[in-house]
């Protein structure tokens, strides 16, 4: 079983929900990425989303755009992200790692080279933001053959037909984007999300993650009531940028934020199953 599937199965047995922090690889400094990933796991993260920096992150708000710019200015590339995952894997064989990014760096490397490299590094899932299911077969099939989950986004506007089609292609989990907008936008509306997730659950058995607009422990806890996984990105990345010059403080504070979310999610009680 893929690490992601095992992770969700274990959590379900324990009546807990997955907490998935996102950071941009190489931001604020390449040397801090692997220590940050370990710190996130210690703070209670279950799955790690590692952003592959791209020069033109169209679906991201200013916080992650700036993180990409900082990372690229220090020479980050898809190849180096894979090296970081390999390094992380040397001391953590359990925690699933999902790469999140845009298609062009992958096209540039070549699908086969990328899939082989991701597999060798210990990547568990790949979410390519600008690759909708219609165009995805060419990448999704080799990923699956290598035991790597292709992960897809669903949006408030996704029709039942699209949800069904996407679920057929996807593995690991489905990532529901909780609002209209880019990453780091205004806070989400939990009632609306609950409503929409109920509709999606009727169409698929895959675990459902929710992201975009989750900034604090109360929102994380509320979303955990209705979703299988809570994704938090910009709220962490913004703080990492601010504390770029004080790495110790950065590792501590970001881990604390994740820890507070973990606690709030666990306190809000077991999932309705």
């Amino acid at each position, binding site marked *: 079983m893929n690490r992601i599937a095992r992770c969700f199965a274990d959590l379900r047995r324990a009546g807990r929900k997955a907490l998935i922090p996102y950071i941009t690889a190489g931001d604020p400094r390449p040397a801090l990425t692997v220590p940050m990933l370990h710190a996130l796991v210690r703070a209670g993260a279950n799955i790690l989303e590692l952003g592959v920096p*791209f*020069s*033109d*992150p*169209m*679906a991201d*708000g*200013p916080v992650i*755009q700036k993180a990409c*710019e900082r990372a*690229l200015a220090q020479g980050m*590339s*898809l*190849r180096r992200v894979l090296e970081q995952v390999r390094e992380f894997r040397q001391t953590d064989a359990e925690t699933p790692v999902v790469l999140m990014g*845009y*298609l*062009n*760096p*992958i*096209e*540039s*490397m070549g699908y086969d080279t990328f899939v082989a490299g991701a597999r060798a590094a210990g990547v568990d899932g790949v979410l390519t*933001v*600008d*690759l*909708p299911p*219609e*165009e995805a077969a060419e990448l999704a099939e080799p990923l699956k053959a290598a035991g790597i989950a292709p992960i*897809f*986004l*669903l*949006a408030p*506007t*996704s*029709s039942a037909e*699209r949800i069904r089609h*996407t679920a057929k292609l996807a593995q690991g989990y489905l990532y529901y*984007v909780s609002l*209209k*907008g*880019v990453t780091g*936008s205004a806070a989400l509306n939990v009632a609306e999300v609950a409503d929409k997730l109920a509709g999606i659950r009727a169409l698929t058995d895959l675990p459902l993650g929710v992201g975009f607009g989750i900034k604090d422990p109360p929102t994380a806890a509320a979303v955990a009531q209705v979703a299988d996984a809570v994704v938090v990105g910009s709220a962490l990345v913004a703080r990492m940028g601010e504390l770029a010059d004080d790495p110790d403080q950065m590792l501590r504070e970001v881990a604390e934020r994740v820890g507070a979310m973990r606690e709030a999610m666990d306190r809000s009680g077991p999932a309705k199953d």
Partner: protein
Amino acid sequence: MTAKALRNPVDFSQFPDRAGHFGRYGGRFVAETLMEALHDLDDAWRAYRNDPEFLAELDADLARYVGRPTPLYHAERWSRQLGGAQIHLKREDLNHTGAHKINNTVGQALLAKRMGKTRLIAETGAGQHGVASATVAARLGMECVVYMGSEDIQRQALNVYRMRLLGANVQPVTSGSRTLKDALNEALRDWVTNVDNTFYMIGTVAGPHPYPVMVREFQAVIGREAREQMLSDYGRLPDALVACVGGGSNAIGLFHSFLNDSEVAIYGVEAAGSGIETGRHAATLCAGRPGVLHGNRTYLLNDANGQIIETHSVSAGLDYPGVGPEHAWLKDIGRARYVAVTDDEALRGFHDLTRIEGIIPALESSHALAYVTQLAPTMRPDQHIVVNLSGRGDKDIYTVAKLEGIQL
């Protein structure tokens, strides 16, 4: 015409396919958050593209508001001086607002109105598409936001002021390279956020499906007219077509009606900036390789890691690291040839046309003119070239003066 295309006749009217593919190029590469909006747009576009009422309104606007048909002008003196083929200028510079861009915004505005949208957004490089968008927004009483790289705002101050006069909100974009590609990113972000009431007018034949085909159809009026004008004035088709290529809308607009006429040679002219060998250029088809950006698969200027690189051209409208997917396909199948001319060559073209024919061309169009100065002398005087004079040069006067050390 290349031998390759002659051996494999293609029916160009059959492209793109239903999902926007031109061979392996085009398609829809956007986040799920935009898919529904693109489907809505595609539905509306397909509902109206052949609707007699819609087309009648479009034709009336093109005639009475834009000023079509534009003349096909025989540049006799220039042809004589170059000593080769007869050169004909398709005078898109005479359109309202001074470039071909308005052919497209008039069409998209009619669609926006029918879709019940109240807010128009656009990206712009040289400012011509921004002006053309602000113009139709003013006419329809719609709110208009134009995203423009802060770098371009500097070099196209005149157009920025025109947009503001027209009531548009010009939003400076300071991310990335602060030029057209970043403005496009920002417009896409706005669209995702405000998709309920907002219509995104892309200014060229790039972006996710249906933009490349929709913008092509709105610009194809250029080539339809040019074809009729050649037939009625000379009783024959031209031997060659020449147009500059930024995103590629004025070029595909001219080319499209001639694609099935295999005897017509087709040349797209890209910006070689300081020279392709210097790395400071925007010659995507000449020097790039296929990749995915801004919602479609096409040729791109990107580094070995797939990061988009900064481009350079003296003309802001050609300063773009991608190109419309149909051009990528026409290049691969050999139906069109893509060449590049430098800033200096374009500036010579600019001065030549101004002095010899009394027409001040846009710096973008000057790239096409510069290539004509190379091509025409290799052809016979009984042969004909149609070159797309995509815009007038008023907006570029400050740039040219500055390059020549003149303070206006």
